């Protein structure tokens, strides 16, 4: 097990390197640069030159990539002008080109915890509704309960967040007035630590932002976006659970279990259910990684200051370091999620060995 984890982590290094490399190359292959224009106005070449010098964009590409990876000290020795970068290896993701004065580390430390809070609650809701609904539908196969559950699940998958979000706002915020329309209201649980950083004019670290204070304010703001995001997730989980459980129930070993006189409850819980969750777990990994690192549409509709918007807008702004930073965060999340999925496989299915 430990050996498996270590080998996995070692494998992560070339993967992340390739992700960085391809993202770096591709984002620079898109026409247009970060400083071509301010709004509608094309900037004079002299001004663009100053900006490119400041952010080292006039260096050769290999040197920029080298600087990005292992820092200016190694890759551009002796040249002290502009913004210094320590390199990704030392955890410095560089400055944002668009938000002058903020670094990508600052942006991620502020935005990622908010996306993670939203994503975590949404996946929890999705699992809480989706998996039991799928199980019930499968056990009551071809009954009105099954049809109803399947219908609702198909509906949930089909209705996009773009529709559901404004619809929920219209009903529950405007007509009924139960919840606020939009925005996020997380305050760090360790607010005294956060205040120290704020008073010193420094960036509040990510771990402080991550855990919210469980106030009424926080949950009231969270309900609509979490339901919007969680509905779609629960619908796809329900369909998957139902389909998978139906397949497992028809397997020979289930018939054997029944034949040897096990109670139905034991057959389902110990034998069928555990095995049928393998496809569900497979999809849960990337699902977690995806929503924890930010969901553009829901964040946009509910004006939630998460990472999702940076993921999308940074490409439009040609804000290279932010594109790279957010992609790396996503890649790391995917890698970790998939590793956890593989470990869960071994627990769910005795035939799977991690070696």
């Amino acid at each position, binding site marked *: 097990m430990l050996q498996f984890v270590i080998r996995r982590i070692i494998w992560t290094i070339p993967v992340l390197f390739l*992700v960085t490399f391809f993202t770096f190359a591709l984002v620079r292959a*898109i026409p247009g640069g970060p400083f071509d*224009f301010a709004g509608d106005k*094309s900037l004079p070449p002299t001004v663009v030159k100053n900006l490119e010098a400041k952010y080292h964009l006039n260096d050769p590409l290999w040197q920029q990539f080298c600087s990005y990876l292992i820092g200016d000290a190694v890759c551009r020795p002796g040249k002290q002008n502009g913004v210094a970068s320590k390199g990704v290896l030392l955890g410095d993701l560089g400055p944002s080109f668009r*938000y002058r004065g903020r670094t990508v580390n600052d942006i991620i430390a502020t935005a990622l915890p908010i996306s993670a809070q939203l994503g975590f609650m949404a996946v929890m809701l999705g699992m809480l509704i989706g998996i039991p609904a799928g199980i019930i539908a499968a056990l009551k196969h071809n009954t009105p309960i099954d049809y109803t559950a399947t219908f609702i699940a198909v509906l949930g998958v089909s209705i996009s967040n773009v529709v559901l979000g404004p619809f929920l706002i219209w009903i529950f915020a*405007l007509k009924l007035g139960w919840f*606020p329309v939009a925005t996020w209201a997380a305050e760090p649980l360790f607010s005294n630590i956060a205040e120290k950083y704020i008073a010193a004019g420094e960036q509040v670290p990510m771990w402080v932002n991550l855990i919210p204070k469980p106030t009424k304010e926080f949950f009231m703001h969270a309900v609509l976006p979490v339901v919007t995001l969680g509905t779609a997730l629960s619908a796809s989980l329900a369909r998957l659970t139902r389909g998978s459980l139906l397949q497992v129930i028809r397997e020979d070993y289930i018939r054997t279990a029944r034949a040897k006189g096990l109670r139905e409850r034991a057959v389902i819980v110990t034998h069928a259910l555990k095995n049928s969750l393998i496809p569900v777990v497979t999809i849960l990994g990337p699902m977690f990684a995806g929503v924890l690192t930010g969901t553009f549409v829901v964040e*946009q509709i509910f004006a939630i200051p998460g990472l999702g918007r940076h993921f*999308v807008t940074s490409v439009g702004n040609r804000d290279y370091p932010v594109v790279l930073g957010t992609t790396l965060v*996503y890649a790391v999340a995917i890698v970790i999620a998939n590793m956890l999925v593989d470990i869960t496989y071994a627990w769910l299915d005795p035939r799977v060995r991690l070696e």
Partner: protein
Amino acid sequence: MSRNKWIILVLVLALAVVALGACGGQATPEVVEKVIEKTVVVTQVVEKEVEKTVVVTEVVEKEVVVTPTPEPATKVTLNLNLGTEPPTLDPALATDTTSIAVIGGLFAGLTWIDVETNEPVPYLAESWEASDDLTEFTFKLRQDNNWVKYNTGTGEIEVQRPVTAHDVVYGVKRTLDPRTASDYAYVLYIIKGGEELNTADLDALSEEEVQALLDGVGVEALDDYTVKFTLADPAPYFPAIASMWVAMPMPQEVIEDKQERWIEPGIIWTNGPMVLVEWAHDDHLVLEKNPNWWGADDIQIDRIEYVMITEASTAFAMYEANELDSAGVPLDEIDRVKSDPVLSKEFHSAPIPCTYYYGFINTKAPVDNANVRRALSAAIDRKGLVENVTKGGQIPANTFAPEMIFGSAAGDPDIAPWALPEEMGGTGYDKAVEMAKGWLQEAGYNDGSELGTITLMHNTSEGHARIAQAVAAMWKDALNVDVAIENQEWKVYLNTIKKDTPIEEVPHVFRLGWCADYPDQNNWLNEVFNPEIGSNRIRWNNQEFAELMRKARASLDPEERKALYKRGEQILVDEEAAIAPIYYYTTVTVTKPWVTYRTWGTVGPPGHHLWKIDWEAKKAALGLK
């Protein structure tokens, strides 16, 4: 997991980046559009402030601070939507309307663009004098303006020191210093020595040479409260430039100490009517009144809470839920708002200093013929377009510069009367179509289909697409011209329509907008279309126009300048029809009845701190005590 899976993962990520590149444009509306969606919010304010009081009380108990903070409920609070995170609050680096809106409240420049008249009026400078040849401007500064800082620990606003002429000199030189890398530094090239400093390669120079360049900039402090600018060319519009963020005073000691982080709350020194209290990035930003400001008695708003909501329909929903004082109206909601008995009274559309236009590539056949361009321009039914497609009360445009700009000839029927409806003094669309057919025949085409397919390109956006489809249909109906509509992501698009793109890759017609930096035609006709200086995307080379611009720039007589610019407009949009102006932008908003005074579509910063609200009415509506 097998190796194949890893490879697939990498490829998927790579593809995702490409896909994002393809659709990122919609999420990033360019500046012109952002101007329109300005908005205002309300409820949570009070709850949050209650929590704050608790903190303050604790402080009082421990440290026995004498100054009591006013009761939260008595703080007159205005809630506005910025629409997006301001990219910076550093006056030297700001380029966009969001940053400038906040900077306009935080900092005070030498002059201020009056929100009603759009002309520069005294601000930090009590008065100014210009030399007879308009190359030297001397500003006398107020002596009662101080740098202040908000203490995030105690909540006090602390006075630092007086603002002096040296701060202005530092600010101007900092903007021009190439190491600052300011986007808008070029606006200050009008100052003597400015361009030399900004374009120098400082790495290649010795320290003495760098110092000589810095000293060579034509801005000096004659004494602590007098600053003199020496210009490279006469500039009658310089007092307007002096209002701009890039020429504001800046606090040297803080900037040098804290570098790029100097704009964070608790660090930043400001000298304007408001102070920065809180800036939660991408979420909200709070300003409070500066009691030390010279005009503090005239400012009713104690606190402005800005949220940053990009989605117009969400901001509008917050307005309807009484969480907002004012909001931009999304295009889809305009019909409903206009017919709603309550909302229609709160609805208002006001002009803003921006123009939507179609540019022709003047060297690309068949639009290299002035008569063809005129025919196409005249065949756009501007009135029909604004009434049925854009629906925001936009004004049909017959010139490039809108009304608020000095030297503008907007609505003057001497220029392109065929672009205006009859009630605005023009010929109306029916006659314009007849004229267009005549011009087409003069150009040697009996029917529009002989032109071949005209390519019309716009940047990817639903709004631009609707307009392009409408215009294509008008050209087809009126002149039987075949039009192919194309669109590209914003930055790709701007690269495509550059003047050095090969002629076969550029469209015949492209769309763009322009908004005022300062209220003078120099910022419009000269900076955008002078074939010798601007970006010249329309690829023309009209020497008469260039000569007019040169004369107008140097002229000391305002009436003569107006006449020169009017002639310039006549050439640009009528005789040559190098561009087809379509409409002047408006901002379409709803405002709650308790807002008793607000500003509309300003050229300079919007001056939110000048708004007035009936606080009792707002509290009653929100159910507060």
